[in-house]
């Protein structure tokens, strides 16, 4: 990733810039090159949330070549430091800044007020300003499809779900997965274990093993490491990854993964900023927009299951199918979304109840 060649290429440019800054000489006007900053919440790693943002950043560089220059800061805590990093990007000539974690929402809004000429895009938030847009993926669409795969593959009808924190995004994923699961296998149920961390390979593995010990024969996750997939591989059960294709960690176990991809959006946003056509909006893209994809199916998934999941994916993309299409019942059996209706985006954003088929109560 950070190869020496890459460095040497940069050094010359950096040196000129630094000299200009030190010597006070006017910096040569880079020919309309758009500098883009990325703020990451964790190390890039090789799977997980930040990794997906980083491959998308690289695709952006590849697609637009010399017209853009990107840089990033990783492991930026979501406390007081975020504002400084975001502001530093804005103050050092970056005209487009992507802040890629929910906790950066208020810092982004604060900095944006001070830098009206800079465009900001915040992932997963809900606050907007004239120069702040948001973007989010309809992760639940992918979850629904992986639920279908799990429903077809399970024999014990028990699915284990390793989750980080009970926030709406995670709850939405659990519910969408369960809706997909029970659309093909009404007897199947989902057990959830919260590990209270986005990233702790050891604990994620313990959680996965716990679920397997209690009878789960498919394990999926809403955490960052690949440990649950490895646990499934070792214990001889199936796994469904999240964020990234995790198949290399479970050659036999990995059925598929609900992945997300931001490259298309990053390229579009950069182009819009360069063309002066960028407008603040709340983008929520799914399968249709190419933000959500299933990872390639593992060898264990039979052709008819693949065909079914692919077909349902097309239906979701075309708008014919919605994962939360009534009737949607909650755990008590009460109908929350009557037949013929679908859940509104606003209700989905604030999800705080489980659908029927999830075991246990949602921690309050």
């Amino acid at each position, binding site marked *: *990733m*950070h190869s*020496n060649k*890459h*460095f*040497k290429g*940069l*050094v010359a440019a*950096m*040196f000129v810039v*630094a000299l200009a*800054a*030190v010597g006070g000489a006017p910096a040569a006007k880079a020919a309309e090159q758009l500098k883009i*900053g990325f703020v990451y919440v964790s*190390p890039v790693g090789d799977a997980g949330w930040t990794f997906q943002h980083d491959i998308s950043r690289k695709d952006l560089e590849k697609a637009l070549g010399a017209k853009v220059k990107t*840089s*990033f*800061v*990783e*492991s*930026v*805590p*979501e*406390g*007081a*430091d975020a*504002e*400084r*990093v975001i*502001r*530093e*990007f804005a*103050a*050092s000539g970056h005209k487009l800044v992507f802040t890629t974690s*929910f*906790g950066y929402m*208020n810092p982004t809004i604060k900095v944006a007020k001070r830098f009206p000429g800079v465009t900001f895009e915040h992932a997963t938030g*809900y606050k907007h300003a004239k120069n702040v847009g948001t973007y989010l993926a309809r992760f639940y669409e992918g979850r629904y499809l992986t639920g279908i795969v799990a429903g077809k593959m399970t024999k014990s009808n028990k699915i284990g779900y390793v989750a980080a*924190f*009970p*926030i*709406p995004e995670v709850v939405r994923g659990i519910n969408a997965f369960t809706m997909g699961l029970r659309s093909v296998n009404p007897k199947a149920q989902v057990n959830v274990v919260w590990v*209270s961390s986005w990233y702790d390979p050891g604990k994620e593995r313990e959680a996965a093993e716990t679920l397997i010990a209690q009878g789960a024969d498919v394990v999926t996750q809403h955490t960052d490491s690949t440990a649950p997939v490895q646990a499934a591989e070792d214990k001889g059960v199936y796994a469904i990854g999240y964020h990234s294709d995790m198949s290399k960690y479970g050659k036999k176990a990995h059925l598929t993964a609900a992945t997300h991809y931001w490259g298309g959006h990053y390229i579009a946003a950069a182009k819009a900023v360069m063309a002066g056509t960028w407008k603040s909006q709340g983008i929520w893209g799914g399968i249709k927009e190419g933000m959500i994809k299933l990872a390639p199916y593992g060898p264990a998934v039979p052709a008819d299951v693949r065909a079914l999941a692919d077909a349902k994916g097309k239906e979701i993309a075309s708008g014919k199918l919605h994962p939360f299409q009534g009737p949607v019942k909650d755990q008590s059996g009460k109908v929350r979304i009557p037949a013929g209706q679908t859940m509104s985006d606003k209700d989905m*954003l*604030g*999800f*705080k109840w489980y659908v029927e088929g999830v075991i246990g109560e949602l*921690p*309050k």
Partner: protein
Amino acid sequence: MQLRLEPRAMPSKWLRYSSPLIALALTLVFGVILFSALGQNPAVALYTFFIRPIGTLYGLSELCIKAAPLLLCAVGLAIGFRGNVWNIGAEGQLTMGAICGGGLALAFYGDEGPWLLPLMIVGGGLGGMAWGAIPAFLKTRFNANEILTSLMLTYVAIQVLGYLVHGPWRDPEGFNFPETRLFGEDALLPVLIEGTRFHFGVVLAVLAAMIGWVFVTRTFAGFQIKVVGQAMAAANYAGYSGNRVVWTGFLIGGGLAGLAGLGEVAGPMGQLNPTISPGYGFAAIIVAFLGRLHPAGVLLASLLMALMYLGGESLQMNLNLPLAITGVFQGTLLFFVLASDVFIRFRVKLVHNVPRTAP
């Protein structure tokens, strides 16, 4: 031939102040080697790390903001460490201070006045003190080792914070995301320099360091702590109570850490979220020792530590160097600073293989 360390009759006063410069020189040499090996221009890299982050008024103000919580925590810890009170749970006390002070801001939201901020400051300090009081109580009453209890309580405090912001305290208009609402105007520490985030909490931190200095050098309680720390037998003889020192250390350390937490949430953050501190409470332990457990030294050490954070960001942003390099560089810098202190008390001699016959 080998290197030998020989104790000086008197610690060298001159080296007391110049040993950090030796460390700095060694760090620069190491930096040149490290960055050259990475294919970087070492001059540019060192400039990017040490100078560039503080080249502007805004940068300087950020340095102060970053140093403030470290300073508050480290002054409190240093006072305890002088008396051999091993509080390594400042992180938890900081978190609890943020919870208590921030909780007041939430409780009186929409119903506030100029009285709120002082109340929050008191609440933050008391919250940290209360959390520090638990290890003190367990130590004095049950003899439970404070290293373990204060560390474990840190994890508990962080989970309590998580519970609150994920649950009862989350922003009612926030789509159930894990953060509280933004505090009202009256609950925020005033910004003192327009255009920056330099807030009143920085002043509080410096005041705390000054009061700490007076406490350590000019009061009887400060003297007692020192005696207990250096010679327990003498302290017993003089009738000083070890238990009182434990309580003093934890209450001061916890209170100041609590203030640090409050300064974060009522200062630059303006709300509570699950990650208030990126480890200030732990970093402050290093700061306390780098500052040789003296409030004035701690002030300088906290600025150095803060600069290392800013420099790390700067290296990533400007030279695309990974964060990992920063860790290696920071660790090495600390090693040099810590190791250089040896020259204060010892002189280095080259001896030919004739041990124990130094002149």
